[in-house]
């Protein structure tokens, strides 16, 4: 067994052990620790798209929304089907959660293909606006979907004795007896950081392989990369799909921790927040982006008294960063290309 796989397994074992400590942690800090993990997954997955492949997605929250809603909806609407597994205790719950995570990831990855393929012809600012548009469309669609609570948000599903299912009790069904299935709490320290470990393992291995050179080559110079036999289309789509997959996982983790999701949790500002993490850390820098995700999750908590300054600080971080150190805190310097005519 190779060294990196041993490190990975050791990390998983350590997470498992550490998880037993979680009840002794103050719930406020515990929540922050979970959000840090989710944000690391989000920022690292966006880094695959924006950092390593040099595209610019401004709609990462859209993928997260798909993961969150898929996972939450399946876990509640199909709750009776899962009852057998759930009654088996911790192992059964783990199996259910893995199924939900996979569904969330795959659904988001399919959306990633839908966004990625048309976006291939676009660069820079056009791509940014298009991805932003996709994310907005996803949000608007969720907002109009009554089955997941529309703009009211989603807590769980009512299953009526006559077999009907809904997110809210309709007026004409108020007399029919029902069972409410709330979004189950699955996410804990172990699961969150398991996926933090998975995505780090994924990126390290990918970027160290010859295969990974393809992404960087496409970022640096697409024409030269193609001339060396690199299929840039394939690499861009892979980046979009795997980035979306992990964003979907992050969404699922979020849904099964918060137990209530609202379309507004996944709006443009959430996408911007993830982008800021990637840019602050340095596009294409694994360590930098992880550190930035940690810092930017803690920062708003420290600024709690002056919450209205939070977005201003984000904005200034972006501007000052671009003016002084466009490669981010830990990134490799981007090549600047002079305006050519």
């Amino acid at each position, binding site marked *: 067994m190779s060294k990196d796989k041993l490190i990975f397994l050791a990390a998983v074992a350590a997470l498992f052990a550490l998880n037993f400590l979680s009840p002794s942690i103050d719930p406020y800090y515990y929540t922050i620790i979970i959000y840090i993990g989710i944000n690391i997954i989000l920022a690292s997955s966006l880094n695959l798209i924006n950092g390593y492949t040099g595209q610019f997605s401004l709609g990462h929250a859209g993928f997260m929304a798909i993961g969150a809603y898929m996972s939450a909806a399946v876990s509640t609407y199909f709750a009776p089907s899962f009852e057998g597994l759930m009654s088996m205790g911790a192992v059964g719950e783990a199996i259910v959660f893995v199924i939900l995570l996979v569904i969330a990831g795959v659904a988001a990855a399919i959306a990633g293909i839908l966004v990625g393929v048309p976006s291939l012809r676009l660069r820079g600012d056009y791509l940014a606006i298009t991805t932003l548009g996709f994310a907005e469309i996803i949000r608007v669609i969720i907002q109009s979907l009554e089955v997941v609570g529309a703009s009211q948000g989603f807590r769980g599903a009512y299953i009526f004795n006559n077999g009907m299912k809904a997110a809210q009790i309709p007026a004409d069904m108020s007399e029919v007896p029902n069972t409410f299935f709330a979004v189950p709490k699955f996410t804990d320290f172990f699961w969150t950081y398991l996926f933090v470990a998975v995505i780090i393992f994924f990126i390290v291995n990918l970027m160290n392989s010859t295969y990974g050179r393809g992404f960087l080559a496409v970022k640096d110079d697409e024409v030269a990369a193609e001339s060396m036999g690199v299929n840039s289309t394939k690499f861009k789509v892979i980046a979009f799909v795997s980035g979306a997959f992990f964003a979907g996982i992050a969404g699922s983790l979020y849904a099964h921790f918060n137990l209530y999701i609202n379309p507004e949790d996944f709006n443009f500002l959430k996408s911007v927040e993830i982008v800021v993490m990637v840019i602050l850390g340095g596009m294409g820098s694994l360590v930098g982006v992880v550190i930035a995700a940690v810092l930017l999750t803690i920062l708003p908590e420290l600024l709690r008294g002056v919450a209205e300054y939070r977005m201003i600080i984000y904005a200034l971080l972006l501007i000052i960063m671009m*003016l002084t150190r466009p490669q981010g805190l830990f990134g490799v310097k981007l090549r600047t290309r002079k305006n050519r005519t």
Partner: protein
Amino acid sequence: MSEFIQQLINGLSLGSIYALIALGYTMVYGILKFINFAHGEVFMLGAFFGYYLARAFGVAEPSITMALVILLLTMAGTAITGMIIEKLAYKPLRNSSKLTVLITAIGVSLFLQYTGQLIFGADPKSFPTIIENTSFNILGATIGTNQIVVLVSAVLLMYLLRLIVFKTKKGIAIRAVSNNMTAASLMGININNIISFTFAIGSSLAGAAGILYSINYPSIDPLMGLLPGLKAFIAAVLGGIGNFPGAVVGGVLIGLVETFTVGYLSPTYRDAIAFAILILILLVKPTGLFGKKDIEKV
């Protein structure tokens, strides 16, 4: 039928506002080849300048003269704001990668939105009536003085822009710079001046659009610029970015599609429809309706 005409009038008046904003996007894109993400916020500032000016003048009785003074002062104000933004945020990045400038523009946009919230307050404000509103009936549809004022001012401003761009020295310089910056600079054109001037013109149009928008939709707040900004950008892309008549046509089309979607489909899709158009146009004809193709030199 009257419903149709009503939507048509609403769409035209909304569309002409989008067109004014879209012109600013197109002008800046033509020269610097980047999307000035903060353009929607200049539009928002226009609305707020108008709001504070109207309050300062204490418009007890709406009058055309007063409205005109407010409009012109606001345009001057946003023009200066646009120039300052360019000087501070974009000028130092003249030789940076496009991505760097784009990110900066997003930063400027967020900065203006949230500083706006801090200064003006996050709650919506009611824009004062600066034009007396009376309604007329045309073929069963209601058209307000508001809408007439919006349409007339938009057309006048576009005509003015056309005069500036095609008849003045500065205008010729703008077109020269957007055609070939290096060559223009070799011909003795001061590039920085022209870029500054372009931002001033584009921003003044956005400021005017801010006022006209607020006359029709009098609830203003610091985040109001985001969506009209994006829609106007989509309008510019639809018309072919860098193309002036394209921006106008694109703006009017987006306005019409939006009002018809709201009227006949569902208000839920009001904002999504513009993005759907964007994705469609980029897939089918990325150069827009009137754009021309660039060949990448290898």
